């Protein structure tokens, strides 16, 4: 069975590293991008099975990136989990409005992240 591909979009190398450490325990190919523009470009080029998207990033924020991905037929149906900061409820609402499927709050909980990823990848 082909390994599932996950795109991680975050401008913090520390958060990207943590996501990679957690998800490398699963059978996934991980791709990273460090802002929304790069995230959109890599999503179109790599066609991931799932995207984890940070909110606050340079060049293009997470909401803008999700809107662009939803507008493109190639990425319209890719599940997107928004990574947002705890206690910022307005980000959750804006994330759903932009088209994300779910959200996880920082600081990341390894079990929660892995469980949501597995759910969206049908595992």
């Amino acid at each position: 069975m082909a390994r599932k591909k996950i795109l991680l979009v975050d401008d913090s190398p520390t958060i990207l590293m943590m996501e990679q450490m957690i998800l490398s325990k699963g059978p996934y190919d991980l791709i990273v991008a460090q802002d929304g523009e790069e995230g959109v470009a890599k999503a179109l080029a790599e066609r991931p099975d799932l995207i984890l998207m940070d909110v606050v990033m340079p060049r293009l924020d997470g909401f803008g990136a999700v809107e662009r991905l939803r507008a493109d037929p190639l990425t319209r149906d890719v599940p997107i989990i928004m990574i947002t900061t705890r206690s910022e409820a307005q980000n959750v609402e804006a994330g759903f409005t932009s088209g994300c499927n779910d959200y996880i709050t920082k600081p990341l909980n390894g079990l929660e992240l892995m469980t949501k990823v597995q759910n969206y990848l049908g595992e």
Partner: protein
Amino acid sequence: MSGATGDERHAHERPAVDEDALGDLQRLFASEHEARLLRSVLGDGPRRLADMRVALTARDVDALGWAAEALRGAAELVGARPLSALCVRLAREARAGNWELAQGLVGALDEEYASVRTRLEAELRRGRRAGDAE
């Protein structure tokens, strides 16, 4: 005057790093991975602080927000809640146009980051000693 309040504490009031959060990292990852994360926080922190200074000088709300949010995320990962709270406050004051107040928080941010760095470096030394003992 630093302008720091509430969670934005000074070293003598609350610990710079929540020991439970560090403990969670230890439980979640092997010591080698934990050390990589701590080194990443220590490596990225000074760059974010420098970015914040540049953004404050330029009165660039967006750039300040990006740097503050990135440092905040890393701070929360290691349980550095006062540092996280200072990042939030600084970005909020800048968004509100309170640039002098935001500028006044930089000293508190530097002081807080120094406390976090001291604790994380101690944690790295402890991890190395534990590795040597195995």
